[in-house]
């Protein structure tokens, strides 16, 4: 099983189309690093993206440098995955 310790999901609220395209550029800048859970669609909709722990500092700096407001939706993915796995094992028992 892949381990996602320290990986976070950031929720970004783009104000306009320009900021949405800044987010879309990320897929090219960091290929296979940023995993869009909710892709950039329109300013009224949040963009959720999973960021590996190793990329967090870069990505947050990128967002801040482009004036993109974000919040941390999931602080550590692996914690939720461990809980999910434990719940499945418990149910099986």
């Amino acid at each position, binding site marked *: 099983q*892949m381990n996602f310790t320290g990986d976070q999901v950031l929720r970004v609220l783009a104000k306009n189309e320009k900021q949405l395209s800044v987010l879309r550029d990320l897929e090219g800048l960091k290929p296979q690093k940023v995993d869009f*859970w909710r*892709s950039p669609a329109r300013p009224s909709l949040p963009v959720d993206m999973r960021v590996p722990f190793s990329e967090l500092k870069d990505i947050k700096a990128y967002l801040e440098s482009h004036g993109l407001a974000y919040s941390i939706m999931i602080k550590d993915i692996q914690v939720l995955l461990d809980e999910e796995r434990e719940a499945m094992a418990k*149910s099986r028992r």
Partner: protein
Amino acid sequence: LERSTSSFSYSSYHTLEEIYSWMDNFVTEYSDIVSKIRIGHSFENRSILVLKFSTGGSQRRAIWIDTGIHSREWITHATGIWTAKKIVSEYGKDSTLTNILDAMDIFMEIVTNPDGFAFTHSMNRLWRKNKSTRPGIFCIGVDLNRNWKSGFGGNGSNDNPCSETYRGPSPQSEPEVAAIVDFITAHGNIKALISIHSYSQMLMYPYGHSLEPVPNQKELYSLAKDAAQALYEVHGIEYICGSISSTLYVASGITVDWAYDSGIKYSFTFELRDTGRYGFLLPASQIVPTAHETWLALRAIMQHTLNHPY
């Protein structure tokens, strides 16, 4: 493995083996109304299974429901399982459902992407695509919801095999998609298709590949609003309704566009809840509430299809 569906936990997530074993028990227990059909094999040669709910007749008008085309969206498979149990439990009690099943069949494909789903349990919980590989291509998998013929190759998909929305080398190149196309085309009397995804609480209809409104857009919007209202009344979860391209983003080569262009007028896609906190990692405690509210919306769409033959 579970010995009967009554001991099966509908409020937990399950592996592919557990789901396929549940299906066998389910079909055995409700053999008067449910049967299992193998419509094909996945890229890694797993069976692609469909549950058929029928009270008789032949070549009846029918409804198609699929879940799990994106393997990490575990809430959708769990919702499909719960819905299957609901159908057999309510038949003969719920007059709306009884009328639907007395006149039409329902086909449910619960694990539409079995290879990807198995991979989320074994290696990568956040895997989305199928597991196809091709000589000379470094990355694995095709986004099965970009591989359909309608609008294939448009800018709402990606030709980079390493992208999460990689469309594949050609329309219906993926066995998981081709199996559904062959089945629905051969059946020839599917009148509604509902493809269930997660997450973001939306109920949408074609087109995804273009902003052009479909001819019966008004009817689809009104039906989506009615279904979303029925869903809202259960737990107060609000859904956004509209066409995919105008509500979300342009997406090309998707299931519901192909269905619509194949003559299935009532084609919808659900994006189930996450309530804004968990994304694809919705806790199992939310399976039953999610499935319950979704059921009311599905029932509204099926009832409309029953009452509006075409």
